[in-house]
């Protein structure tokens, strides 16, 4: 069940040059989102940009919704110009959600992918091992907040300015290799959101170790509700809509 509603911007705070958190207050009743779901947001009321943009639910408290976003192109630039009191139109929550972990789990966030995973870490406090990879210290936003919700936190950055230098998937491999054998497979599933190459590598790691791995995918979207067929991903059973059958998929289903 998803809705189309208007919402008033509560605030739009800069974390640094590239990242902001948008908080909004819906002007009508909403459906409570689950971790992994997303919303389509517009950033102004003109025809340019034309389409809404998808953003993962980052927080839902006291009848406000918040989104953590990175300024990339036209749409997110316009979004970053919104100010308290502005009204925008929102569709959501959309898509499926992360299947609830039965016990402890691994969360692998690549950059702004943390936006999608933090609600899961929050819901299952102190049961998630957080692996957070980013380009640099600057780009590992919300690290301490996410870390505080996690059982243990591992960080890697491309330039070594935060945590280990290198790929987060390498850190994860080390961790998995050191795991006691009784923890395995379904008892410690992976939940991941981030750039495609990272997800692809995770799917390999998971397959080799027969670990369940859920990935949240990104595709360009027009409608967000399953109508346009614009956002498909190739799966073992043909093209599937990221906005409808996803964005969370079992990594085994994806034709990488």
């Amino acid at each position, binding site marked *: 069940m998803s809705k189309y509603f208007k919402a008033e911007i509560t605030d739009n705070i800069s974390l640094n040059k590239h990242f902001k958190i948008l908080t909004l207050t819906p002007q009508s009743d909403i459906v409570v989102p689950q971790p992994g779901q997303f919303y389509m947001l517009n950033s102004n009321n003109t*025809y340019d*940009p034309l389409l809404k943009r998808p953003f993962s639910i980052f927080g839902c408290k006291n009848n406000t919704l918040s989104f953590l976003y990175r300024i990339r192109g036209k749409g997110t630039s316009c979004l970053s110009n919104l100010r308290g009191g502005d009204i925008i139109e929102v569709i959501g929550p959309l898509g499926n959600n992360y299947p609830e972990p039965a016990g402890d789990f691994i969360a692998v966030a690549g950059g702004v992918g943390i936006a999608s995973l933090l609600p899961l870490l929050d819901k299952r406090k102190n049961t998630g091992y957080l692996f957070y990879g980013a380009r640099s210290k600057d780009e590992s936003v919300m690290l301490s907040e996410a870390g505080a919700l996690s059982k243990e936190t591992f960080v890697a950055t491309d330039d070594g300015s935060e945590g280990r230098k290198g790929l987060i998937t390498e850190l994860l491999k080390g961790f998995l290799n050191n795991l006691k054998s009784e923890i395995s497979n379904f008892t410690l599933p992976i939940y991941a959101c981030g750039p495609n190459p990272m997800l692809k590598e995770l799917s390999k790691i998971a397959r080799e170790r027969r670990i369940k791995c859920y990935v949240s995918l990104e595709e360009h979207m*027009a409608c967000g509700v399953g109508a346009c067929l*614009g956002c498909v991903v190739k799966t073992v059973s043909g093209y599937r809509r990221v906005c409808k059958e996803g964005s969370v998929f079992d990594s085994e289903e994806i034709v990488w």
Partner: protein
Amino acid sequence: MVNLSVNIAGLRLKNPIMTASGTFGYGEEYSEFMDLNRLGAIVAKGLSAAPRQGNPTPRIVETPAGMLNAIGLQNIGVKAFIKEKLPFLKKFDIPVIANFFGDSIDEYVKAAVELSGADGVHALEMNISCPNKQAGWIVFGTDPEIMEQVVKAVRKETKLPLIVKLSPNVTDIGLMAKVAEDCGADAVSLINTITGMAVDVKSRRPVLANNTGGLSGPAVRPIAVRMVWEASKAVKIPVIGMGGITTAGDALEFLIAGARAVAVGTANFINPTAVIDIIDGIEKFLTDEGISDINEIIGSLKIRS
């Protein structure tokens, strides 16, 4: 009370607002946002006799006030549509128009025949913006002769109201509308998307996996209004107008220019209740202007001389 109902090709529509094929799924997708019973008609995603998997991604890219799509006509095929999707649509009290296509005349006829036999399909819309594999991949709808062959072939095989959906990628849209009429179409609809391309300058590759795509959205509206006007002057059968309709005002432009009904496409993506807002907006406009029947508006354009 304002009368909003119009007649098209033997169908009575509660109001002249339909959904544009391919932008409203099979109806289900938007049913949680509105009461589908309010629509004038529902036009479903384009169907082929056999299922199609469509193009790789990227399939869509935004352009100024528009978007290019190259979905590649992904669809579940006529049989699955009848079995899996039609039962849902039959629950509503509105005409269901099945849009279909093929890459050969045989494929067109096959799809049309199967759809005509299905209970709950009230009319057919034939998308002729597809390449003909038997004629060097020339798009059916851009050559009057090839178009004539396929429309005639389909017309012979179905008794359902037949709407021919014209391609805008032509020199003379009035001529194409006339060909459709002469071949026995009960209505024409236009415009389908206009072929376009976007280039990623860094990689120097087309953005879309299919290289080119179809332009839709507000950007095309002035072209669409002009073509609807030209087509409605060229034929006596009803014209269904579309292309960039986003507001009630946009829909009225088409109706005034000669469309007896209109379809809303890309706007659904931006506003999932666009069709309802447009219906309400038209009703309000007529009330405000003191016009009691939508039919008074249709084709009422006063050309300047």
